[in-house]
């Protein structure tokens, strides 16, 4: 044990802010990366589940008629 007390541990001999800022940033960013990666995975899985519903195949693709849509303009 390199420290006499918990407060000495927190103070780090006056270098506390520097040390803790580094560790905070490290865990924060690693946490964000991990959270983001997990979220991305959930999003992709949800996406693929939606896509599992079959797309219209080329046969049943609607054909273009190019008829004008009549809408009255007052």
């Amino acid at each position, binding site marked *: *044990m390199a420290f006499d007390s918990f407060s000495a541990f927190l103070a780090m001999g006056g270098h506390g802010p520097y040390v803790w800022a*580094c560790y905070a940033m490290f865990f924060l*960013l690693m946490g964000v*990366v991990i959270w983001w*990666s997990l979220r991305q995975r959930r999003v*992709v*899985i949800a996406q693929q589940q939606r896509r599992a519903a079959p797309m219209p195949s080329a046969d049943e693709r609607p054909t273009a008629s190019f008829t004008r849509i009549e809408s009255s303009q007052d």
Partner: protein
Amino acid sequence: MWQIFHKLGSPKWFFGIASTLMPWLLVAGAALLMTGIVWGLVFAPQDYLQGNSYRIIFIHVPSAFLAQSVYIMMAVAALVTLVWRMKLADVFVTAVAPVGAVLTFLALFTGAVWGKPTWGTWWIWDARLTSMLILLFLYFGVMALGAAISDEKSSARAVAVLVLVGVVNIPIIKYSVEWWNTLHQPATFKLTEKPSMPAEMWVPLLLSVLGLYLIFGWLACLRMQTHILAREGRTRWVKELVQARGN
């Protein structure tokens, strides 16, 4: 030989292996990293020159170490992508680049914060810091290019070319930055690695480096799986897998 190679390159096979591997990677990585950090923070002796600020080393060195080796790994994967067109290799490159960028940023950030109590300044245009900054730029370039090309496959191949061009440049950049550094400032701020680091210091350091490596392995598997799911959505096994998760 080719069979094994192709099996290694098969996304389905990788997905299975990764799934079984990931819990182990995560548990072992987290355990090693936490042991290293707690040991380093609480039990390791104070440095007689720098006081307690040196305890930043237990995250700074692992981040810096990984930041560089991730780029090298990406370059190897890029070469495999371009030469053998192995599917998994290009998935690796795109999946891992953001993690590399974050690690590079962490190395820079912790280095700067460590520099304040040690050198009295947040930032010096020291050779190591400068080349790390350029590495961060390279990562940003890779990510920007990857995001700009919508088609996954072309994107992966373009990124592979860029990564390879970058890796050829890394030694040149490193060398030129060092040369430039000696030209501009005589080595007043030379932070020399003390050759005889006591075991109570380097063992926890080693543990945290290993731990972060394993965590990176877990993250890489996770992100690669995500990219594979997104890319191979049409294949039967992905459909079945996705359906199984939904129910």
